[in-house]
C-alpha cells in the first residue's frame, strides 16, 4: 500500500566528488563526513523532514556501500515510515538491458515508477552535495501560488563567481527568460542551486522525450531545463538567502567546517527550529584531560583530549595524546594522534594513526595548501608530511 503524496523528493546522491580525491576513494560524496558528527547527505534529508516532505528517493551509483548502510531504513531522520519514507534507488537491470545512470535526468527517468506509486502533483529534485538549511515547503508554496511548471532555487552570487554556475536570467517577477550554463559574460548573478520543483506531468513528459533523443546527455542543467524553456513552460526562479556551500573541493570542505566555529558562525548548527539529524553511534561523553587545552573548536562524543586543540573540528572517538598540537584542522572519527605530534591546516580522514612527534602540514598562510591524510593510514613516529601533500590509500610509510 502506498499513500498518495503531494510532493515526492528525489535526491541525487550518485556523484563521485572527484575533486575531493582521497576522501571519496571509498565513499560517495554525499557520505563524506562533515561538522563533527554529520555526513553531507544529512542536510538535504533533514531539510526534507523539517519541510514536511517524507517521501524521499535517494539515487545512488558511485561507491554506495557506506551511503546505503548510512541511510538504512531512514530511522535517524524519522523517514522509516509504513507507507512511504526513504528508499535507496540504485541503477538496475531491466528487461531491455542494464544501464548505469547516464545523467541526472536519466536517473530520475529510470525511477519514474517509484514516483508514480505515490501519485504526487509535484516532484522536488535535490542533490546530495551541499551544506545548507532550506525550507522546501516555502519553495513549494511559491511554486503552487505562481501556478508554475518548474521552479528553480537560485542564490545571488558575486559577478566574478557567476561564470562557475548555471545562471538564470529573469524578469522582475522572477520568471526565467534565459538559462546559461557557466557563461563567460554573465548577465545576472542568479546561480542555480540544483534544487528544482517540477509539476509531475510536465517532468514525466520531458523526461520521456529527452530519453528518446540520442544526442542528449540526459542532464537537468544541460538538457531538460533548456528544453522546457524552449517549450514555453512557466518557469520561475526562487531566491534563497541563507548559507549554501558546495563542498566539492578540499578547500571548500575545510572552509565549510570552519564556518561552524565561533560566536557568530556563518553556518549555525545550533538551531532548535531546524535541527539536523544524523545516524549516531554509541559513544561515551568526551573527556578533557588535565594537560588539555581546547579553544575555538568543535569536539564530539567519544573524544579523549590530553593535547592542545585550536580552531579545529574533531569527530567522534578521536584521541589526542599529551603534548600533541592540533590547529586549523579537521580530524575525522576514530583517529589517534600520539604524543607530541603537530597537525596544522590538515584534514585527517577516519581511523588514521599519527605516530609520536609527527609533523603534518604547515601553519596556514595565504598560499599554503591543505594537507590530507586518507582513511586508515598509519604513520610511524616522526614522519613529516609537508604542506599540501595528499596521502591516498596507495601510500605507505616505508617508501
Amino acid at each position, binding site marked *: 500500500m502506498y499513500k498518495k503524496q503531494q510532493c515526492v523528493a528525489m535526491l541525487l546522491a550518485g556523484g563521485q566528488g572527484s575533486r575531493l580525491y582521497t576522501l571519496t576513494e571509498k565513499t560517495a560524496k554525499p557520505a563524506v563526513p562533515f561538522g563533527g558528527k554529520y555526513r553531507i547527505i544529512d542536510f538535504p534529508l533533514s531539510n526534507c523532514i523539517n519541510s514536511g516532505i517524507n517521501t524521499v528517493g535517494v539515487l545512488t551509483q558511485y561507491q554506495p556501500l557506506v551511503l546505503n548502510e548510512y541511510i538504512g531504513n531512514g530511522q535517524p531522520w524519522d523517514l522509516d515510515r509504513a507507507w512511504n519514507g526513504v528508499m535507496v534507488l540504485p541503477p538496475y537491470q531491466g528487461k531491455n538491458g542494464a544501464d548505469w545512470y547516464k545523467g541526472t535526468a536519466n536517473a530520475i527517468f529510470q525511477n519514474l515508477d517509484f514516483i508514480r506509486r505515490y501519485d504526487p502533483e509535484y516532484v522536488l529534485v535535490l542533490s546530495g552535495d551541499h551544506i545548507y538549511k532550506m525550507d522546501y515547503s516555502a519553495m513549494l508554496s511559491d511554486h503552487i501560488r505562481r501556478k508554475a511548471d518548474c521552479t528553480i532555487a537560485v542564490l545571488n552570487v558575486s559577478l566574478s563567481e557567476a561564470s562557475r554556475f548555471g545562471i538564470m536570467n529573469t524578469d522582475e517577477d522572477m520568471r526565467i527568460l534565459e538559462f546559461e550554463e557557466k557563461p563567460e559574460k554573465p548577465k545576472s548573478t542568479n546561480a542555480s542551486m540544483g534544487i528544482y520543483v517540477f509539476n509531475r506531468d510536465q517532468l514525466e513528459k520531458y523526461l520521456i522525450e529527452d530519453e528518446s533523443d540520442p544526442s542528449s546527455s540526459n542532464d537537468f542543467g544541460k538538457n531538460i531545463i533548456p528544453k522546457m524553456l524552449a517549450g514555453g513552460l512557466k518557469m520561475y526562479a526562487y531566491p534563497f538567502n541563507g548559507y549554501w556551500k558546495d563542498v566539492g573541493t578540499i578547500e571548500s570542505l575545510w572552509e565549510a567546517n570552519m564556518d561552524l566555529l*565561533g560566536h557568530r558562525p556563518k553556518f549555525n548548527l545550533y538551531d532548535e527550529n531546524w535541527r539536523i539529524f544524523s545516524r549516531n553511534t554509541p559513544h561515551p561523553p568526551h573527556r578533557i584531560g588535565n594537560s588539555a587545552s581546547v579553544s575555538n573548536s568543535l569536539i564530539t562524543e567519544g573524544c579523549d583530549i590530553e593535547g592542545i586543540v585550536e580552531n579545529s573540528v574533531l569527530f567522534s572517538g578521536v584521541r589526542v595524546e599529551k603534548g600533541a598540537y592540533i590547529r586549523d584542522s579537521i580530524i575525522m572519527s576514530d583517529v589517534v594522534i600520539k604524543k607530541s605530534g603537530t597537525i596544522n591546516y590538515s584534514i585527517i580522514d577516519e581511523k588514521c594513526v599519527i605516530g609520536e612527534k609527527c609533523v603534518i602540514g604547515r601553519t596556514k598562510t595565504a598560499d599554503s595548501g591543505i594537507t590530507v591524510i586518507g582513511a586508515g593510514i598509519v604513520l610511524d613516529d616522526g614522519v613529516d608530511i609537508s604542506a599540501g601533500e595528499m596521502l591516498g590509500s596507495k601510500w605507505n610509510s616505508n617508501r
Partner: protein
Amino acid sequence: MLAAGIVFSNIHDSNLPELTKNRTVASVPFGCRYRFIDFALSNFVNSNIFNIMVITHYNYQSLMDHIGSGKDWDLARRSGGIKILPPFITAHANHTNELYSSRLEALKSVSYVLKRLKEDYVVMTDCDVICNIDFEDVINKHIRSGADMTTVVKSVELNERITEADTVYIANEKGRVKDLYVNPSNMHGKADVGLNISVINRRFLEMIVTDSIAHGYASMERDVILKNLEKYKFNIYRYSGRSARIRSFEDYFTHSMQLINDHEFRNSLFSEKNRPIYTKVRNSVPTKYMIGSAATNSLIADGCVVEGTVENSILFRGVKVSRNATVRNCILMQETYVGENSYINCVVSDKNATIRDGRLLSGAPELPYYISKDQTV
C-alpha cells in the same frame, strides 16, 4: 530466546529523594548522557536478551519519555522488545489494593505477564547498581549449576554504609547460599554483597510468586530465600568487574566524580569491547568551545557551549557555561545555564536549571549544593 529481563524501576527511590522528586531511580541522569536504566538495558541487549519488562510504580512519565519505543536500544521489536508495565490496580481499588514496596510484591502485581513468558530463564535487575556486566556468563553458570536462582554478588570490604543498605550472602565453596543477612549492622570484614541482579528459572519464579500471593509474603530474601535454603537451590555468582551502587545523594556525587578521576572505572563502563552503553539519541550538535574557554579534567557530552572555565566537572547535554564563569567539581545536568562571571563549586544542578550572572555558589563533597529542575538561582 533463552531469557527474558525484568527491570525494577522504583525500588530505591527513597535513597535519592532530591533526584527522584520528579522521576524514578531508573531515569536519574548519570555520566553526562545516560540514565541509570541505560546500564541495565544495555547489559540486556549486549547479552542478547531482547524481551524486557520494566516494572513501574509512580512518577514514571520521565521514564516512558526516555524509553520511547525502545529503538535506541534496538528494543523496538514485533515480538519481545521493551514493555513498560504500569502499576496494576483494579477499578475497585480500596485500601487493600495498595502499591507494592518490594520486588516480590511488584512481581505479584504483574503475575499476569509472568504467566505468558516463554523464556526458560528470567534476569531481574534493579537500577541503582551501575556496571557493565555480561549476563550471558551469569546465565550459563546458573544453568550449569542446576540452581533455581542465582544472585550476582560482589566481594567487598564491609563498612557501615554498605551494611545499612545491602544484603550479605553466605555461601559454601560450591556457591550455594547457606545464609543471608539483610542490612546486618554488626558485620565486619570481607563479604559477598548482593548487587540486586539475579537469574531465576521462569517456572520457579511463577511458582514462588503464586505461593507468595497465597501466603501473603512480601520479601524475596526473608520470606522466600531464607525459609527455603534447604528445599531449593539458591546460588551466588561472584562478579569481578567494577560496579558502583548509588545508595545516597553523596554516593551519587562521589561515583560521578569517580568517572572523571578513576580511569579504570570509566573504562570498565564505557570501553568494554562489543558492550557499549546505549542511551536515547538526542541528535545534539558537537560541543563548541569558544576562544578563551579553559576546560580540564572533565567529562562533557555533546551539545554544550563552553566559554568559561570548567574543572573536574560533568556536563550533560546542552549545558552552557558563559564567559568568565568558573565551574569546579560540579555535575550540571541537561540544559543547565551558567551565567557570566559566576563561580560554582560542588554544585549538582538538575535539568534546565539557571544560574544567574555573577552568582557565587558552593557546596562540599559530602553535601553538594543541589539546584532542582527548572529552578533559577
